[in-house]
């Protein structure tokens, strides 16, 4: 008799629905599985399969085509100059910085899930943390692209960093743009380390199971000699906790520094004190929406529905609701204080946002970020796959437009009516933005195909079988 049969008989039932809420009973987070080996099988077979699902090839081809377009746009930009974008005076930042802030925001959910939810002992994070962290890293790469290609003389892009030099030329340390360089690169480094350290035991699992020589070599190299001894695990857990604690302030700091890019200025609509927490809430909001956008097809395609369950999606949708409300709070505070301040320019900036030339963008922003997420108050909406997929896309659109509204509407209509202007994107703007999604897609698809998409070792630790004190049914 196999151990799986014993387990099934002892428990007397197999959980299939885990979205119920009975206080005092914690929901099962892994469905239809009673052995650790089942989890290993389910996750590893994706990386071990000879062929990926057809949909993977289709998505990869599309992403690759978009990356080619991105490459073309970037080269065209380098050889011609930033004039190929629709930037002008007064709108000197538009799609580029909107995309930068958008992608940095997407990159927030990963570390929140891996670090903050870890410290909050949210066990459900184990189902989604691995690919959310991967998403973070790829999103930060996409984000870093935009300021990098925006500098104009791209061959001097290393001047972003304070490198000692003969001419004693230094970046402006008082500028938040430089703080951004530090904040984003630190965030990228720490997220990547955290992601990698978490993955080492799982890479070792893949190494041990690998049949081909190349796989053995590659997984072997990156699993750094992990043997799963008690001593290894002990140190691993300490390291993981410390990394989580060190990564936690970064979740707040990165988007706070991004918000400083705007808020330290004196421009109405940019200079407002609520910006740091407001940007952080918005970033988590969009990041979780992106996790849902990716998780819904991924669990379908790779058969991970028992590991990334409806419960996980329900929880994420709740976080989307919470952060959506925080964003709505920030919008209301900005508007209220603009009126309360009695300052002419403040009042104008916000009236102009809502009713000026960019009223449509503002309308998209408010309806996508504040109004439609309210549907998530209802459990039926939170647990309906089609609805959450559409709503997560809607949130992503809304958050892109939020940055667009903040950046463009404030620049287009500032203090002097004689210097007012507007922004019309060129085809290069649009193709670069689209291309970045391709870059993200390529990275993410490769990750799904070749690396353990779900944290194997961690998810085993939250199964009832791992708890020595669990209730033994009579």
């Amino acid at each position, binding site marked *: 008799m196999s151990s799986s049969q014993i387990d099934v008989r002892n428990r007397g039932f197999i959980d299939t629905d885990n979205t119920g*809420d*009975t*206080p*005092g009973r*914690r929901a099962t987070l892994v469905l239809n599985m009673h052995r650790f080996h089942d989890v290993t099988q389910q996750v590893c077979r994706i990386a071990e399969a000879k062929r990926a699902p057809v949909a993977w090839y289709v998505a990869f081809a599309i992403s690759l085509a978009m990356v080619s377009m991105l490459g073309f746009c970037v080269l065209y930009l380098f050889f011609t100059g930033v004039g190929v974008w629709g930037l002008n005076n007064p709108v000197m930042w538009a799609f580029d910085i909107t995309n930068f802030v958008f992608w940095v925001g997407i990159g927030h959910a990963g570390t929140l899930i891996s670090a903050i939810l870890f410290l909050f*002992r949210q066990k459900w994070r184990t189902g989604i943390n691995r690919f959310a962290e991967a998403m973070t890293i790829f999103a930060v790469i996409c984000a870093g692209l935009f300021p990098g290609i925006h500098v104009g003389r791209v061959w001097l892009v290393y001047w972003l960093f304070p490198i000692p030099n003969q001419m004693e030329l230094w970046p402006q340390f008082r500028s938040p743009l430089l703080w951004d360089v530090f904040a984003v690169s630190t965030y990228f480094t720490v997220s990547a380390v955290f992601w990698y350290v978490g993955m080492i035991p799982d890479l070792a699992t893949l190494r041990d199971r690998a049949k081909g020589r190349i796989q053995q070599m590659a997984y072997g190299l990156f699993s750094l000699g992990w043997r799963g001894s008690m001593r290894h695990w002990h140190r691993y*857990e300490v390291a993981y*906790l410390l990394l989580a604690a060190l990564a936690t*302030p970064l979740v*707040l700091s990165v988007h*706070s520094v991004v918000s*400083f890019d705007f*808020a*330290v*200025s*004196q421009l109405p609509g940019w*200079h*407002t*004190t*609520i*910006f*740091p*927490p407001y940007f952080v809430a918005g970033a988590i909001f969009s990041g979780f929406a992106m996790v849902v956008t990716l998780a819904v097809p991924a669990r379908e395609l790779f058969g991970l529905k028992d590991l990334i369950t409806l419960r996980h999606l329900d929880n994420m949708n709740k976080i989307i609701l919470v952060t959506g*409300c925080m964003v709505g*709070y*920030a919008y209301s*505070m*900005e508007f209220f*204080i603009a*009126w*309360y*301040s*009695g*300052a002419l320019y403040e009042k104008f900036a916000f009236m102009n946002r809502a009713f000026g030339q960019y009223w449509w963008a503002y309308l998209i922003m408010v309806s996508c970020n504040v109004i439609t997420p309210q549907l998530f*108050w209802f459990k039926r909406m939170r647990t309906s796959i089609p609805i959450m997929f559409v709503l997560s896309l809607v949130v992503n659109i809304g958050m892109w437009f939020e940055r667009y509204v903040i950046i463009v509407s404030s620049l287009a209509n500032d203090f002097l009516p004689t210097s007012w202007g507007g922004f019309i994107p060129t085809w290069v703007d649009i193709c670069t933005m689209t291309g970045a999604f391709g870059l993200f897609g390529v990275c993410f698809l490769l990750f799904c195909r070749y690396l353990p998409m779900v944290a194997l070792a961690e998810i085993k630790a939250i199964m009832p079988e791992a708890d020595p*004190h669990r*209730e033994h049914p009579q």
Partner: protein
Amino acid sequence: MSHAAEKTDLTPSRFVGGEILARYSRMALAVAVVALGLAVWLGWKDPAYFARQYLMNFVFVLSLALGGLLFCLIQQLTRSGWSAVVRRPAEALAANLQWIWILFLPFVGIWLWGRAHDGHGLSLASIWPWADLASMGEHDPAEAHIIAAKSGYLNDRFFFIRAAIYFIVWGSLARVFFRGSVAQDTASPEECVRITARLSRTAAAGIILFGLTTTFAAFDWIMSLSPAWFSTMFGVYFFAATCTGGYSLITLIVLKLRHLGINRAVVSEEHLQDLGKMIFAFGVVFWAYIAFSQYMLIWYGNIPEETTWFLARQVGGWGTVSIALLFGHFIIPFVFLISRWIKRWTFTLAVGCVWMLAFHWIDMYWLIMPVIPADVGSYATYNEFASAYADTASRIGNPVNFLLLLGLMGLLASSTMRRLSTKSVVCVHDPRINESLSFQNI
């Protein structure tokens, strides 16, 4: 279920505070009455200043009760398992919100007195200048012009209507959470599950109401003391401050109950460590994050309409208070509370709580007591302004401050302890109690 959970006898009567808390409650009430009497006797000579001192201490005591409510809301909303054994003190602390409106009545009295005496002597405008636009227009027409534009919000009637709304919202939420939780002590297990499920749903709506009411209360009672000044972050700042005060006081109550042996059987170092983490994360670090962001953005933007608020807080004795906050509210407790053993050892944790409460009080003092000098705009440089106001005293050592603190804290403590003296101080029948009992930090 762990062995600890199996062995623990969870009869509610085992955890009732009893006579000792009832005696403390009576003592606190006596202290409160004497202290308030002395405060009135000493402070009444300068009624406008006394009113501000009273406001400051009222907001302090209110923020503690609000912190208690916030703790209940968050724990129920997140279906927290660890906190079931320490939640009752928070509920009892929050329950004070049902009567705390009484402490606001003196402001209604001042308003009515001012109206009856046509602004001579004490009036609402002695505290909140926007309440008397006419006299403001006489000595500062520019500012009065700005304030007039927002009189749709800043006017005495709407001010008191809003206050009534805040107290109704807070009082009702506190009542629902305290009653629901206490009802579980005698309810059947099925009924307990239903109550917790209901409270969890209520908490979702409650947290939104809480966020909005505390924000606008902070605008009304604190920010509008300098009516021309504004900051979108201000509501969040006060929210963070309620975490500092509330969480520290909850922990202190838990520690005292443990000291008396009332909840010692169920509250372990693990729970203390988690309470300490809450103070560290929200009361110290989150507060510092918000305070820094607000200060840095205003300092960097350097727009006079915003900087005046901080200018008033960095001249003379106020500069010392500001620096004290930087070190006492952030740097020192950050280093202190970060260690694991500090949060697990009763004595050091208690020191941390008292320290944070003290600096939360100083924070409220720093928010409420300074007055932006009317002539701040007439100086050419900052140094001229700073030297003109170099001998401004913060007057933080004024005994009336402490008498009022003692008085209002006495009332809060008395009422909280009276509640805990007849009820179980542990939510013994919370459906998640076993999880809480067997909880261990990693």
